């Protein structure tokens, strides 16, 4: 659990320059990250052991065994594998700038198109899970956390449990129990809201465990802060204090965590999508991985890095909204 690393995260606590300067810097460093990810993605394709042309031919034809040199030459020429690495790299970067992530070895379609059509459901799933996780974490914290009773302890234990339980296993159980056996939810969710329930829960429960722990920790800590006592001394009720003062503070590390959560959600979504046989990046990636379709995998790397950058900018902005100290310095 990366809990600790996150609560101490330096990413967000950049104390602030002028907002526009800040934003520009943020974008710039985002671009650097994406560029580096692109380089990484390119390198993956290069270090693939074995001859890339050979793999492309065999994957396409379904054959095993060495292809003729003429066939290899044709493929090498088509994909430019015969050029120096620097040239290939330059072309790759240039292509990316044009929104072209290369072509799938297996599907012979542009990777950008493949990812574009699959990423929608994945993002919907991830965001739904994020929201649900937040909702669970906040509601439970608001009502239960920091009280000296059994529920509070139970909540704590539940959160640790949820954060630990393998999500794909939980998903399988949810699927069999609630869909196949009880028939409450559809087995094939598709993209309908009702079909989204089980996969979202499977993803969100784990995340809510993480969020819950972080939010609850902070919540309990803030509950003892002098300004909370101040508020109580003004005659504010316990719930009022929790809602108006404490929650906002407790949300801050949770917000920071959301950027990290995106990565976690994407990881989780890959597994969950496979369990539920859902449309999405997961199935495509797993298929691509087992057939060495590197352009898809490296395209996904690039896209998720870009998404991460985008998400962390959103997280930072949100953080600034919730914590005006940063904005107004």
């Amino acid at each position: 659990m990366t809990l600790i690393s996150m609560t101490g995260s330096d990413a967000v606590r950049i104390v602030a320059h002028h907002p526009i300067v800040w934003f520009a810097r943020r974008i710039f460093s985002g671009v650097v990250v994406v560029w580096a990810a692109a380089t990484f993605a390119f390198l993956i394709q290069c270090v693939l052991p074995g001859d890339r042309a050979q793999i492309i031919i065999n994957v396409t034809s379904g054959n095993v065994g060495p292809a003729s040199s003429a066939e290899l030459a044709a493929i090498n020429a088509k994909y430019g594998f015969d050029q120096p690495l620097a040239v290939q790299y330059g072309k790759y970067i240039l292509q990316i700038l044009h929104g072209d992530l290369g072509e799938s070895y297996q599907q012979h379609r542009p990777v950008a198109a493949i990812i574009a059509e699959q990423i929608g459901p994945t993002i919907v799933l991830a965001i739904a899970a994020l929201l649900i996780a937040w909702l669970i974490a906040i509601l439970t914290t608001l009502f239960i956390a920091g009280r000296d009773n059994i529920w509070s302890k139970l909540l704590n234990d539940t959160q640790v449990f949820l954060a630990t339980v393998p999500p794909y296993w939980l998903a399988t159980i949810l699927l069999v129990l609630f869909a196949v056996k009880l028939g409450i939810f559809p087995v094939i969710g598709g993209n309908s809201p009702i079909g989204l329930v089980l996969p979202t829960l499977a993803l969100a429960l784990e995340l809510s465990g993480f969020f819950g722990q972080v939010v609850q920790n902070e919540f309990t800590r803030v509950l003892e802060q002098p300004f909370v006592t101040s508020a109580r001394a003004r005659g504010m009720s316990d719930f009022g204090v929790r809602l108006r003062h404490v929650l906002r503070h407790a949300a801050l590390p949770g917000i920071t965590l959301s950027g990290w959560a995106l990565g976690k959600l994407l990881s989780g979504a890959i597994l969950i999508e496979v369990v539920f046989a859902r449309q999405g990046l997961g199935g495509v990636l797993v298929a691509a991985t087992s057939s060495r379709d590197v352009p898809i995998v490296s395209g996904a790397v690039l896209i998720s890095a870009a998404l991460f950058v985008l998400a962390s900018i959103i997280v930072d902005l949100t953080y600034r909204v919730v914590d005006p100290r940063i904005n107004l310095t």
Partner: protein
Amino acid sequence: MSMFAEVTLSRPLREVLAIVRRVPFRIAVCIIIFGVFVLAAMAPKVLQTHDPLAIDLRSALQSPSIAHWFGTDQLGRDLYSRVVEGAGQSLAIGLGATALSMSIAMVIGGAAALSGGLLDSILSRIIDVLFAIPTLLLALVFVTVFGPSVLTEVVAVGIGTAPGYARMIRGQMLSIKGAGYVEAAKVLGHPFSRIVWRHILPNAMNPLTAMMTIGVGQAIIWASGLAFLGLGIAPPAPEWGALLNAGRNYVIYAWWLEIIPGLAVTAFALSLTIIGRHLQDRLEGQR
């Protein structure tokens, strides 16, 4: 530095004893669970009731019973014995991956924190980039490139989880680097290398111990996730992820084949997590 060695040596012992006496019930339970799994990993024969690989076609797909505590799989193999057998490999994968990822993280995060300046910027950026790629995706990348095997699984999970640790180590070391006692040592004229060895590394290790404990559990979960996707180690090795992956196909008709290995993974990771968090609290309380 080594003065009063006799005194300082006995200290840890006393502390250990003191800690043992103060162990709360739930931690004790977790330690026992953990102990059982370690025993299973080190000496599976002690715990097994059957040969984990012995095929007994007549008792295929039996639900849990007195003869077969966790039931049997399609080939009549005793699931309990298989779960016990799998502990070793799973534990090895978890430890290996965590060790690897900690090493990488120590090198990158540590170098970044200690060097500062340009190198720090570059290394931090590298960490950022790796951090920007979801763990499982990073792991998939390595499986794509090197093909599935135990080694790939360890490397994939190790590298996949490294950026998080690297970030943490960097932060940890930076804060220790800025701590009063480091400055105090500098004022005493100690060279930086000595400060690193005597102050920064040992103090950074404390929280890392806790993180590693938790990390082993998480690594096992990631690794079994890969296996779950069919990208892990192949049967007949009863590695937990492989059991989970195989069990998935039977879950409608033979629930135990999926539920029980999952419970094993969860129990193991959970006990490690709780122990780790306990350690974390203790070690933090100490500073």
